[in-house]
Every structure is written in structure tokens, then in C-alpha cells.
């Protein structure tokens, strides 16, 4: 059977890719890649720590995300999608200015999921919040509910989508934490880009693994979610906001 052979090689190749190949691109070694037939489980919760002190005045993370996931705009800023963006904040008291990337925070209690009428917005077992575009009706209630403006509505026809990041007019989309890469045992494109660029402002990893790099970083210094007043226990945390 040509198929099973094909599949076998696919799996083998993937496992090898996850473990041995592409070294040096990874800030945190993931324990191992799940094999394709294995479902994501609650044993893991993927998270991101963004160190604003290291975050430069650049946007390689944004560019990397756009290239990876193919969310090109039409030069219409109000309706063009943005899965991740750079925001500059100023302290009202001290005038201190800082720059940080904002993306879907992969909340543990996601308001977008609570309000979605069809269940299209959902949280995967491993904490990644996604939109199932197959059942999204485009009501935009999730966009009303998200405190971080993390979501975009696809306002026009799409072409040349990536096979692993389908997107289409009339549905809502947002950062997937590069779920297709994570499933393959790799880190999100933004983290990879930031790391490669030498800034190393982002750490990705498993929040449930006590020995993961991200947990060591989190234990070593202060961090906070955006809008801590909302108590959403976000998967993305910031240091030095």
C-alpha cells in the first residue's frame, strides 16, 4: 500500500525533525513532538513570556507571523487583519515609554469562547485558543468580547492561503500560537524570528512542565498579564510592563 508507506515516512520524518533537526533555532527544547495521530492533551499548556526589556523597536515578530500564516492586507488599515502588532505604551505618571507585541493572549478563561454562539471559538486541551472557521458564522461577538483586540474579521476574499493556515472572507481569525508548528514540535514563528534576530525577548514553552524553560524564566523574575484586573489567567505573560 503506497499510502501507508507514505504515511509511515511522514511520521518518521516528522519525529526526526522534532528531535534532531533544526537545532539552534529553538530557545526551549520541547520534550518531544507529538506524533500526528496523537491528540493534544491537558498535560500541557502552551505559554509565552515576553520580556519587554529585551523587546526592541522592531517588528520581526510581526513580519515573521505574517509570512508564516499569510495574513496579507490590502493597504486598508482599518479592515486589514493583524494577528500580532507592536504597541507603544506610555506610563501616565512617569512618562516612561515601552514597546511590546500584542497578540491573542490565549486566556485560560477566554471571553471570546464564552460568548461564541456556535462554539467556533474554542480552547484546545493544551490551552491554545482557536477559531474553527468551519463553523464560524462571522457574528463578531468574540471580537466584541476580547479585551485585547486580538481578533480580526476577514473583510475580503483571500487568496494564496497557506495549507496549514486557512483563512476566508466572513470569518474571524487570530493568532493560533502557530498551532501547526507546535503540533510538529516546533516553536511559533514569532518566537523563532525574535530569537534568531538576537533579541531573545520571547520564551515559548509548556506552563505545566515544571522543568520547562519558560517556567524557569517565570520563576526567576516578575511577570504580569495585560489587564491583570480581568483575571483571565492568560497564557501570554509580560516581563517589565
Amino acid at each position, binding site marked *: 500500500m503506497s499510502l501507508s508507506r507514505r504515511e509511515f515516512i511522514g511520521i518518521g520524518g516528522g519525529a526526526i525533525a522534532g528531535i534532531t533537526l533544526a537545532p539552534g533555532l529553538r530557545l526551549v527544547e520541547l520534550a518531544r513532538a507529538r506524533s500526528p495521530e496523537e491528540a493534544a492533551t491537558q498535560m500541557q499548556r502552551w505559554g509565552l513570556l515576553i520580556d519587554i526589556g529585551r523587546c526592541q523597536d522592531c517588528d520581526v515578530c510581526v513580519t515573521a507571523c505574517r509570512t508564516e500564516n499569510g495574513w496579507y492586507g490590502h493597504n486598508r488599515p482599518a479592515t486589514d487583519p493583524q494577528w500580532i*502588532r507592536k504597541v507603544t505604551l506610555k506610563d501616565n505618571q512617569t512618562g516612561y515609554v515601552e514597546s511590546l507585541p500584542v497578540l491573542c493572549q490565549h486566556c485560560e478563561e477566554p471571553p471570546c469562547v464564552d460568548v461564541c*454562539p*456556535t462554539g467556533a471559538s474554542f480552547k484546545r486541551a493544551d490551552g491554545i485558543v482557536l477559531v474553527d472557521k468551519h463553523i*464560524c*458564522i462571522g457574528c463578531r461577538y468574540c471580537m466584541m*468580547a476580547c479585551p485585547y483586540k486580538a481578533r480580526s474579521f476577514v473583510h*475580503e476574499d483571500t487568496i494564496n492561503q497557506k495549507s496549514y493556515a486557512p483563512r476566508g472572507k*466572513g470569518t474571524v481569525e487570530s493568532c493560533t500560537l502557530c498551532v501547526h508548528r507546535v503540533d510538529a514540535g516546533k516553536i511559533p514563528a514569532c518566537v523563532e524570528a525574535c530569537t534568531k534576530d538576537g533579541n531573545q525577548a520571547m520564551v515559548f514553552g509548556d506552563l505545566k512542565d515544571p522543568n520547562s524553560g519558560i517556567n524557569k524564566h517565570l520563576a526567576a523574575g516578575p511577570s504580569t498579564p495585560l489587564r491583570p484586573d480581568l483575571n483571565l489567567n492568560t497564557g501570554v505573560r509580560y516581563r517589565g510592563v
Partner: protein
Amino acid sequence: MAHAHYRNLEGRSLGFYAVLGLLGAITFAGLGAALYMEHHGHWVTGMSNQIVWGTPHVFAVFLIVAASGALNVASIASVFGRQLYKPLSRLSGLLALTLLAGGLAVLVLDLGRPDRLIVAMTYYNFKSIFAWNILLYTGFFAIVAVYLWMMMERRMNDYSKPAGMFAFLWRLTLTTGTGSIFGFLVARDAYDTAVMAPMFIVMSFAYGLAIYLVVLIASMRWSGRELGDVVFGRLRNLLGVFVAAVLYFVTVYHLTNLYITQRHGIEGFILLNGGAYTKMFWLGQVLIGGAVPLVILFSRLGQSRALVVLASMLVVLGGLAQMYVTIIGGQAYPMPLMPGKEVVASSFFDGMVASYSPSLPEVVLGVGGIGLALVMATFAMKVLPFLPQSLSDADADPHYKAA
């Protein structure tokens, strides 16, 4: 009063067809606008990633709220046992159905994927207040339809009272549900308040009755039927009370928000420095939708039917303004990313008042919803006896004595 007599609209005059044609044209224009929006995608509208709900939602929510309010007249008769309102009940039920249909049509046609309506009906997330609303709306159709049937079928008349009671409770839930759509948005300062739901109920009383009055006066007059001063006066006074109650709730809502320091930003935005939204609030919602109608309804001006119709229409306009301020103003005001920090730069309009101007297709779609509601009501009045033969003083109130 023994038995009210009902009769279909003749529906053969040129005037009838003119009305039907006009309303039909408005409806079709709305449909065309929706097709245009779906074909090109939402970027051709004024809506964006900042203002995700726009003018269609203003009309849709208004119509849905008004629909539950239109049922009130029937509820007064069946639940509170006021005989005077009995002959008014059928029209009340009818308008409740058609207004809801109009509102839902607008809501659905504005979806990113209206073709997936079936998905909305088959996949439910029971945590979502939106999903509950879908059930509430569907149930409302069924219950009001049954209620109407019990009112119209003599053998079932006995059951109309419990049915009316049930419909009344259902409609209270429905409006609470509609209000809660906004009340559940914790992230947005304008919405996250418990006053939202009761405020929506009171608003529904006013909007529903305003539309009811216009339709009643117009259809009685155009079909050459008498509408006596007793019924007219009661409905007029009732509308006045409802409009005053809306103003009261709006005051409470803003006072509550002013009490909470965190909300001073949004309050200042709506009440003082929000540009179009501030104008829309004071001129549209308070003056046109509240103060002017109150003056007309409670003064000698209220003797004039024409002026009362005008007042009702002003209430409708004020209601639309109120929805605009609530829905669009509430989104335009920026959300903070971090308490105590201000956004000074962003490629995604963080920290800025989002700009929005309604586009033509959006407005046409919204007005189309009103057209759909009215064309359905007009047509239904022709095929079934919804309208009482007479609402003259003698018919309405046997104890009435000409002064």
C-alpha cells in the same frame, strides 16, 4: 364589552397597493444591500476591526427590542386583565412577530457567513448568551403564534389568558437576554453593568408602543375605521409614561457609571467630548427621543393625532440614536491595554477613538428590516382579521358617556 369584531383589510385600493409596494421596495433594497455587502466583503461598509458591529446592528437590536415591546399591549389585556386593550391584542401579537422577523433578518444578513445560518441553528455553545438568544427568539415566534391562534380561534379563547401570561414572561426573558448581550462584555467599560438588562426592558416598552401607535392609527384611518378618544388617549398616556421611564433609566445608568471612577473616561466621552456620539446622545436620544415627545404627549398638543404620530416617530428615531450611542459609541471608545498606561503608538488603532461612518448599504439594510416588518404586517392584516372593526368610544368602553 361583549365581543370585539375584527375584519381583514379590504386590500384592494390603490392606496393599499401603494403602501405595500413602497414597503416591498424598501425591503428589496435592503436585500440588495446585503447581497452587495456579502459579495464584496465587509470592507465596503463602514465597519472595521475596530467597530465590528455597525449600523445594521443598530437597526437589528432596535427592532428586536421593539418586537418584545409591541407585545405589551396584548399583555396588558391578558395578563393584567384590562378589557379596553382586548381588541388591540391581535395587532399587538402580529407586530411582535413581524418586528422580530425584520430585526433577525437584518442581523442574519449582516453575518460574515449568512449562508451558515443552519450552523447557528445546529451548533450551540450553551455558555453563550448569544446562543440562548437564538433559542429565545425561535421560542418567541412559536409562543406568540400559538397565542395569536388562541386569541383568534373562538374555541381556544379560554386558553388565551395562560398563553398570554407565558408569552409575557417569555418576552421579559427575551429582552433581558438581548440586553445581556452587551451586559456580558466585561472588557468594555460602556457595557459591563447590571442596569443594561432592565434598561432594555423599559426601552422595549417605549419603542414597541411607539411603533404600535403609528401602525394602529395609520391602518385604522386608511381603512376608514373609527379610533375613539378613549383608546387613543390611553395609549398616548401609556407611551408618555414609558418614555419618561426610559429617561429615568438612562439617568440611573449614567449616574451609576459616574460613581465608578474607572468609567469616568467612557462617561466623559458619551456625555461631553465624544463629538458625534455626544451630539447623538443629547440631541437624538434625550431631546428628540425623550423631551420633545414628552411635551407633546403630556400637553394639549397630545390632542392632535398627527402630533402624537409625530411624537411616536420621534421616539423611534430617539431609540435608534440610543442604540447608535450604545452600540457604536461603546465600541469607539478605546479599551486600555494596561491600567495606568496610555497607548501612544499602534498599527491597530489601540488607544484611539475608532472612527466610523455608516455606509449606504448598511443603512439601506437596516431600513430594509423595518420595511420587511411592516410589509409583513400589512399583508397579514389583509389575509387575516387582525384589525378591530371599530375602536369607537362606545365600542371600546360600554360605560363611556359622551362628555
